[in-house]
């Protein structure tokens, strides 16, 4: 219902934009000077059957072009109302965690955060909710691309509020394979070893949207085909092989509304009928100044995950157009040419070119952005779980 309304708003907005054939949406740079805030931001999920990880950072001034400051050296501990205490260890870059925790659904937990310099924050006690397993992660291929859905249900009808995150990873190739490599030490060309291969890469990413859903209004606690993401038609992620790991978390109702409010404030504005953005109120409080704003909501529950793969072969007519900006160039096999094209210009040799009479004439070559998959942000390190 809520999402339907939001879609409607988007629709109106698009309608009007198209009707009037003008750029009705323009960049806006606020003329107001943003105050310095530096409020504490706490993000993480307290779980027993997987790693618990919290990251601490601070708010910065608009427009947010500086780096987000992370908080190091803080002391975090999980406290149960059975007087159990589990300290988290610092993992660097503002992250604190522990591989696993012996949490119990009969105990309530809270998080205590001591910032170096003195301020201490304490969350409310939250129940440890069992999360039902994911029934399936499925996908639909149509003219809009591939949409990936998650399905779950709780036979006890007690979970009701869910959050999902995902880690996606996909294999891809550049437009052309570089079989040879330029060796700068002796200005020569050598065949690439498998370790030097830049034809196959894997790129990963996480969800940048808040994905929450509920079955509060349904007779059974069922989430049916909740859309997680859409991969646009003929785009790179599905050009070879794709995998997504979906994590499912049970939420409390108030924790759900916290995230819903955050999503509404930051993801769904810009329609004709915007709800007013509002201040977020989480469940973490400063001990010395209870009115201080702290961004974050401590929630606890078991973690459920599910991974699926989608191969390009499963998608008839999915064509990712992978072209080079420039046509291939033949670099003659002369030291000057090799030095100029491979060292100075930085082309990658593709394969050998033989003249009409037979001997090696030179190398086909092209720019790294169409020959080297790492240029596009991936890594050549094959994940351990990757098939074949």
């Amino acid at each position, binding site marked *: *219902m809520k999402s*339907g309304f939001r*879609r*409607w708003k988007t629709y*109106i907005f*698009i*309608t*009007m934009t*198209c*009707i*009037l054939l*003008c750029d*009705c*949406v323009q*960049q*806006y740079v*606020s003329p107001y000077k*943003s105050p310095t*805030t530096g*409020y504490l*931001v706490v*993000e993480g999920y307290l779980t027993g059957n997987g790693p618990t990880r919290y990251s601490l*950072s601070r*708010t*910065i*001034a*608009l*427009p*947010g072009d500086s780096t*987000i400051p992370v908080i190091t050296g803080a002391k975090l501990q999980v406290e149960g109302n059975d007087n159990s205490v589990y300290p988290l260890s610092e993992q660097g870059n503002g992250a604190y965690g522990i591989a696993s925790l012996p949490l119990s659904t009969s105990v309530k937990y809270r998080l205590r955060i001591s910032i170096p310099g003195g301020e201490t924050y304490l969350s409310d006690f939250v129940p440890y909710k069992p999360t039902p397993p994911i029934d399936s992660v499925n996908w639909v291929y149509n003219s*809009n691309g591939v949409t990936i859905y998650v399905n779950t249900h709780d036979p006890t009808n007690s979970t009701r509020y869910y959050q999902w*995150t995902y880690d996606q990873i996909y294999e891809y190739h550049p437009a052309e394979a570089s079989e040879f490599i330029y060796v700068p030490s002796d200005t020569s060309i050598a065949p690439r070893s498998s370790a030097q291969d830049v034809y196959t890469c894997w790129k990963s990413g996480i969800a*940048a*949207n808040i994905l929450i859903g509920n*079955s509060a*209004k*349904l*007779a*059974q606690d*069922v989430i*049916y*085909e909740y859309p997680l993401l859409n991969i646009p038609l003929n785009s790179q992620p599905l050009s070879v092989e794709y995998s997504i790991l979906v994590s499912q978390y049970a939420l409390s109702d108030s924790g759900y*509304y916290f995230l*819903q409010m955050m999503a509404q*404030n*930051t*993801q*769904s*504005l*810009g329609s*004709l009928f*915007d*709800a*007013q*953005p*509002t*201040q*977020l*109120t989480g469940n973490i409080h400063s001990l010395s100044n209870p009115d201080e704003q702290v961004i*974050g909501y401590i929630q606890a529950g078991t973690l459920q995950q599910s991974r699926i793969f989608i191969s390009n072969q499963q998608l008839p007519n999915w064509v990712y157009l992978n072209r080079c900006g420039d046509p291939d160039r033949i670099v003659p096999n002369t030291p000057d040419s090799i030095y100029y094209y491979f060292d100075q210009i930085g082309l990658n040799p593709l394969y050998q070119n033989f003249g009409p009479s037979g001997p090696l004439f030179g190398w086909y070559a092209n720019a790294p952005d169409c020959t080297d998959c790492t240029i596009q942000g991936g890594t050549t390190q094959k994940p351990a779980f990757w098939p074949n």
Partner: protein
Amino acid sequence: MNPKFWYILVTITCCGLLAGRCSAQGKPSAALTLDLRQVTYGDALKEIEKQSGYRFFYDTADLDTVRIDVNVQAQPLSAVLESLFSGTGISFSVDRFHHVFIAKGEAINTGLPPGFFDKADTGRLAAGDTVHDYLEDVGKTAVATIENKLYIIGEKANGNLPGKVNLAGYTLDAATGEPIVGASVYVENPRIGVSSDQYGYYSISIPRGRHVLNIQSIGMRDTRRLIMVYNDGKMNIELHTQVMTLKKVIVSAEKASNIKGTAMGVQKIDIRTIKQVPVVFGEADVLRVVQMLPGVQTVGESSTGLNVRGGSTDQNLVLFNDATIYNSAHFFGFFSAFNPEVVKDVELFKSSMPARYGGRLSSVLDINGREGNKRNFAGSAGIGLLTSRLNIEGPIIKDKTSFIIGGRTTYADWLLQDLPSQYKNSKASFYDVNLTISHEINKKNNLYLTGYLSEDHFNLNNDTTYAYGNRNVNLKWKHIFSNKWNSVLSAGYDRYQYSIGSTQNPVNAYNLGFNINQLYFRANFNYYLSSSHTIEFGLNTLRYKLHPGYYVPADSKSLVVPDTLQAEQAQESALYLSDHYTVTNSLTLDGGLRWSLFNYLGPGVVNNYAPGAPVTVQTQTGTTPYAAGSVIKTYGGPEYRVSARYVVTENFSLKAGYNTARQYIHMLSNTTAMAPTDIWKLSDPNIKPQYGDQFSLGAYHNFKNNTIETSVEVYYKRIHDYLDYRSGAQLIMNHHIETDVLETHGKAYGVELLVKKLTGKLNGWVSYTYSRILLQQNNPNEGPLINNGHWYPADYDKPNDATVVANYRFNHRFSVSGNATYSTGRPITLPIGVYYYAGSLRTLYADRNAYRIPDYFRTDLSMNIEGNHKVHQKTHNSWTIGVYNLTGRHNPYSVYYVSQNGVINGYKLSIFGSAIPFVNFNIRF
């Protein structure tokens, strides 16, 4: 110009010159014997001249066309003349040359001899003993159509009595027989004036004797009637539309209703003015024009919601032919719900709300529909880019019963073809239908049946469907007990509903809906006690039945649990009494008292909360069930409506007013613009009624023969128990909505300057308003403080607002209209910081409405081209061509920040980011 008309004019003028001075000759004689029946004064005088030999000098216009009987036996001339003119205000003198000069006591009227027009008519009048009263004799209320004719009301025999008499009747449109509402009917000396009511009825008490009765109405040619009043009587007055005015006939009379009326903060616009103002898509839009009046603001171009003097959009009582319209927007707010073809005029009460209205704090917007043409079948149609409209009207029984039916629809779906493929299957449409049947049972009883139906539909890619609509029907009975006393009884039913449905996900397939129903009865009585007191009193009662929400499965496969919020019912009643008291010629008081009573009724289960603590889910102590029909909670109290006017000089007056109001129904919305999915909530034990009061002062000065009106009005207003929302409020399907709302209070103040010229080639108005509306929630027992308990501006607080609306009429077929409007940008909640969460940079919000969007400025231009003005042709065509937002300025509607692909982007959204040309074709038949 019509040559026939010229011909008549010239003829009349010549005849007037020749006939203006008459004389007769003969030998003077001492005693006269006359036995004349059914003769005019002129004939009588001729006869006297013949017998007496005296020579008479008189202006024929002074002697009305009334037939008289003269029967004298051997009387001296002076006695004959005395009996002849007694009670007529005509004096005579005789000089030594046997010249008799006959003249009016007052200024000589230079009008035409009425006989030239009506010789045939006057001859046909039936006989009477003395001076003949046309009006009784013709068997029905005579229609006074001619300005220079003297109309006799009542029996001459009473002519010499002192005291006042009452004159009443209808003001009518000469062409169609439709009543003219709000026509100003007044005499100059002593200064007494009234306005015709919504049925065109007027009732005025004036001293016996001869008067010039002036009649004015916007859009109609000013006119006057020479009357001689002996007794109470009736007179219907027909007015001609201004278009028919010949250039050479300039009737210059007072336009001073703003000076003389006691009402403050009242703006009336007729449809002609509304149609001149350029609006986007070219279709005349009632609400857009109202939004250009001083003191009226709106949050943006796609909103038809009105913010009147710092009031929120739900604090306006929008009446369309007496029916309450809960949603006045079509098509995402780009069109208003009122078909311009059936609207007659619009009246907005910003400050002195008449006591007969109530239930809303800020204003009453009274939209009067037209009545059908009682004489001929007629119609009009308009074709625009997005909408078309048609209306047909005509008599059912000639001069008795008429109907008007109007419809409007859109065909905007073609636009949706251009949308991206995922919206290809989307649809958006609306229509509305109006019907009014008016029936004159007899002279004293009129019936009016009006109906209104509107419907909007959207369908998003065959996914979610939205629909909302208004349904209204009412029946009014106007009864005239006597000249001094009339009543209007009305009963009706109003409904507003919306529904949303989606079947895309079979498990979640749902239908969600809301509706509000009200059944009402109103009785209004007007009593014209005397020339100094007009009493109005009555009773309103209104039964509400709200279904605040239902959420049900759309089909059998859906797992949605049906959920229905309990229905709410209440009775809102009011008794009122007001007196329009003319203390002296200069000082007039209007005092009104309205006692309103609200009963929240069972059946229902009311949530109880711990007293003194904020109303939250945690402080709920239990529930109390109530049986059907039981009174759960009663609110009520007096509402005062007081205003006074003091005329300092002919052209200058001062006014002051104080009024209070109570509102028992609230709109729940956390969107800035009025959305179709906003719901309404009745006051209940946990939600108090809103209460507001307003002081206002005004000075009014007219210039240039009252053709230019200027005014300054200041006001200060307080609002109590206005609903605001907690952060993260859930408004839809909330079983304890009281835990998500906060009762705040507000103050609004401002000054409104207006210069208005409604006549002449150049007409229009210029207005400037400075106003503020501030809200505060500083009661910790109520709930979380908003902005730490400080005052904060409401969403629609736009301090500076200037508007120019102008129309220049080059000739009768071509006019150009333009308007320009400037206002301060509205307040907005902007992020104060940025944080990283859930894979993205996100914005941080703190205080509400601490910043403003950029200022608003827009100019529009349009040309109205009329076809030829031949009266007798099958159709009359006109074109409206124009450009909206001429400068193409990107006026911001909102400014927002959104997280996209992990980063924050700030955007400025304009509804119209370029100049929008439009064309509209209208046809009348």
